[in-house]
């Protein structure tokens, strides 16, 4: 009869194994992205994502694309010495929390193609260094989320998003206000989904956007390693996933068909009629152009915009803009100084409302340009909206060099003023110019002007972000920016010491005491016959 009992044991073992298999199968089937659902009970639904994001992740699966989220969270340095620093830490940790929470949704929806990696320099230094190198990340960049997409058969591409600057909306106290000292910056909102989904979309949908550098108007332009060259800019663009190409307009005046963005760097002549015509038409069809003027010592190398400027309603001054410098030594009591070569590099104020310069404004990084010139609005062409991006302080002037001599003194006979040196121009698309069967026709074309050198090899380490921002923004698809995000808003407790005392009493004595009492009563009743 031994066999009988052995048979029973085998039966039970098989039963157990089968049950285990069923369990594993159930769990596996349930984690298929198609069947997996998230129920979001988080405060303010901060983890819920819009239908557009869900579609996006579906598309990702369809295209077998791998999506990686790399989170770089450098450790907080030291103790928070003052309230401001402490608040900064709190905002940062809250942003990290919200980001992680949101990424859980992406991970849940994306299935096995989505990886969420949090790099920890102390936990795994080797991998963290490799990843930092791959994404060109430095600790000074702070909390950064890298969105990396790898579509089969294409180069992997990524986009860096800064938590405080891109994903969060932090309200800075108005430093001019009288009570500014006691005010702390506050995390007002979290717009992670808009940013992350936009980044994915742009990485996924556009393929490799081609940036065309307009040749033929900037004979001095070089991509070498010297200070005035643009090699670093091109390298950074390529790293960001742009295809940097040249457009030799002297050979073919038509804008290349695959262009996502045309960049003209330090043109020394106005665009000729053909190029003007083709560029303007392209913009009217939704094209994007970035023109970076700079003042040149050769008088006739300072184009003013010409026909292109007239069509879009701007004109660039021919003379360099200088600006008095603030005396930081304190000896003169905060006066503005001139007659110093430093006046050549005006410090600029940035428009905090425009997406290109918003993060620059928030990070409060100073921006200096060389060889600035003034951009002026002229006329009012139909369907064109102009927006100032960069502006000097109000102690500026347009310098004149009567005898070929550089003169750093402010002219006495001219009133000092502020000059615009950066401008974003939005142009309504003319539907008539579009091919009739264009899907999702763009609504606007964009031109960004900066009149001053800032993204040469010299300037890139400091102001490269602005140049990359401009290119990113100009090539970004706008469809996603209006997706409905939860828009998390922070709430804060206001608790007085007596309340804390009451809470402590209630929690430490009240609740356990209640249980003690109840338990005692129950046990007494049970003991009674």
């Amino acid at each position, binding site marked *: 009869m031994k066999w009988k009992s052995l048979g029973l044991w085998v039966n039970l073992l098989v039963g157990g194994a089968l049950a285990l298999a069923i369990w594993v199968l*159930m769990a596996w089937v349930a984690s298929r992205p198609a069947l997996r659902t998230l*129920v979001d009970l988080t405060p303010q639904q901060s983890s819920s994502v819009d239908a557009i994001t869900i579609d996006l992740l579906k598309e990702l699966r369809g295209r077998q694309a791998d999506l990686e989220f790399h989170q770089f969270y450098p450790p907080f340095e030291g103790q928070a010495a003052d309230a401001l620093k402490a608040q900064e830490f709190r905002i940062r940790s809250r942003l990290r929390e919200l980001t992680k929470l949101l990424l859980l949704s992406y991970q849940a929806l994306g299935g096995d193609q989505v990886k969420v990696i949090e790099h920890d320099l102390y936990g795994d230094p080797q991998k963290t260094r490799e990843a930092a190198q791959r994404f060109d990340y430095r600790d000074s960049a702070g909390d950064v989320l890298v969105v990396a997409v790898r579509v089969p058969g294409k180069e992997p591409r990524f986009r860096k998003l800064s938590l405080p600057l891109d994903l969060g909306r932090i309200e800075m106290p108005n430093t001019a206000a009288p009570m500014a000292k006691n005010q702390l910056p506050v995390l007002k909102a979290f717009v992670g989904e808009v940013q992350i989904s936009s980044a994915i979309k742009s990485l996924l949908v556009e393929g490799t956007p081609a940036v065309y550098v307009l040749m033929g108007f900037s004979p001095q332009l070089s991509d070498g390693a010297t200070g005035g060259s643009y090699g670093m800019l091109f390298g950074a663009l390529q790293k960001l996933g742009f295809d940097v190409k040249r457009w030799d307009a002297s050979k073919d005046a038509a804008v290349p068909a695959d262009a996502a963005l045309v960049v003209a760097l330090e043109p020394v002549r106005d665009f000729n009629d053909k190029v003007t015509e083709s560029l303007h038409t392209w913009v009217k069809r939704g094209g994007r152009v970035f023109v970076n003027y700079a003042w040149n010592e050769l008088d006739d190398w300072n184009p003013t915009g010409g026909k292109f400027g007239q069509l879009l309603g701007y004109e660039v001054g021919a003379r360099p803009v200088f600006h008095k410098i603030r005396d930081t030594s304190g000896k003169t009591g905060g006066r503005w100084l001139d007659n110093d070569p430093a006046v050549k590099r005006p410090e600029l104020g940035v428009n905090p409302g425009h997406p290109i310069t918003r993060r620059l404004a928030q990070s409060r990084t100073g921006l200096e340009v060389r060889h600035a010139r003034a951009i002026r609005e002229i006329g009012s062409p139909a369907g064109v909206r102009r927006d100032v991006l960069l502006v000097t302080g109000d102690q500026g002037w347009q310098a004149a060099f009567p005898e070929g001599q550089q003169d750093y003194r402010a002219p006495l006979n001219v009133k000092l003023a502020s000059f615009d040196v950066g401008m974003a121009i939005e142009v309504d698309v003319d539907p008539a110019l579009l091919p009739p069967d264009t899907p999702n026709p763009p609504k606007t074309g964009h031109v960004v002007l900066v009149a001053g050198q800032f993204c040469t090899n010299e300037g890139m380490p400091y102001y490269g972000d602005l140049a990359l921002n401009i290119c990113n923004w100009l090539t970004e698809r706008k469809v996603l920016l209006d997706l409905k995000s939860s828009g998390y808003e922070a709430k804060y*407790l206001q608790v007085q010491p007596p309340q804390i005392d009451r809470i402590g009493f209630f929690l430490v004595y009240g609740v356990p005491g209640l249980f003690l009492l109840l338990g005692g009563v129950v046990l007494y009743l049970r003991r009674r016959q």
Partner: protein
Amino acid sequence: MNGAWVTFKKELFAYLVSPVSWLIAVLFYLMRGYELSRLVAHFADNRLDQELLPTLSYGLTSTFLMVMLVPGILTMRCFAEERRTGSIETLLTAPVRDVDVVLGKWGAAAVFYGLLWLPSVLVLHVLEYGWFLDADLAFGPVFAAYLGMFLLAGLLLAFGCFASSLTDNVLLAALLTIIFCFGLLRLPNLVAGSVDVAGNYYLRELLDKLDVMRNFAEWFARGLIDTSQVVFYLGGIGFFLFLTGISLQSRRIA
């Protein structure tokens, strides 16, 4: 099902009148109360986002102890004690199916565990009043965490029932369950630390599912309910209850 319901009622009643249960409740809420009052003070001092308070209240040490120690204590007597005293014989010769007995006993343990946690929700609600915090707390995470805790405990208690059915030594049963809880809480971290998990989807997915404490802290306690996790827990509960049934059956072979 009558058998399951009757067993459930009897077992739940036994839990409610057991001094051990009340001792657990008092100690748990004493520790939790201390930790929670410290947490509230911390929030007030540092102006932390109040929406985090309910979530963080589930990350306290008392939660950890409750998950690690209490399931073993609750279920150790389920079958081991009955085997030791011989009452299992009356139980299994009564006209009830084994599955009813298992379901009833597990159900009572799970519901009792749920009851142990219920006051923690009420406490948070009481804190909302003006006399205390005077704030609207977010209860989404609380409910999700409650569900998550119930599922997690259900799994652990199902294992506890199984462990208890294996032996007639009550302490051994408790120890087995506690080791299981501890293993489930620690193992995924250990494996993830020693093996390259990122590259292996299945291993990663498995570890993700098994990393119950992280799932609890990062999903349920934040207010996120992932249906695949719910299915995982339900499947695990079914699995261990099935094993318990098998284990009861095997007495027929002995």
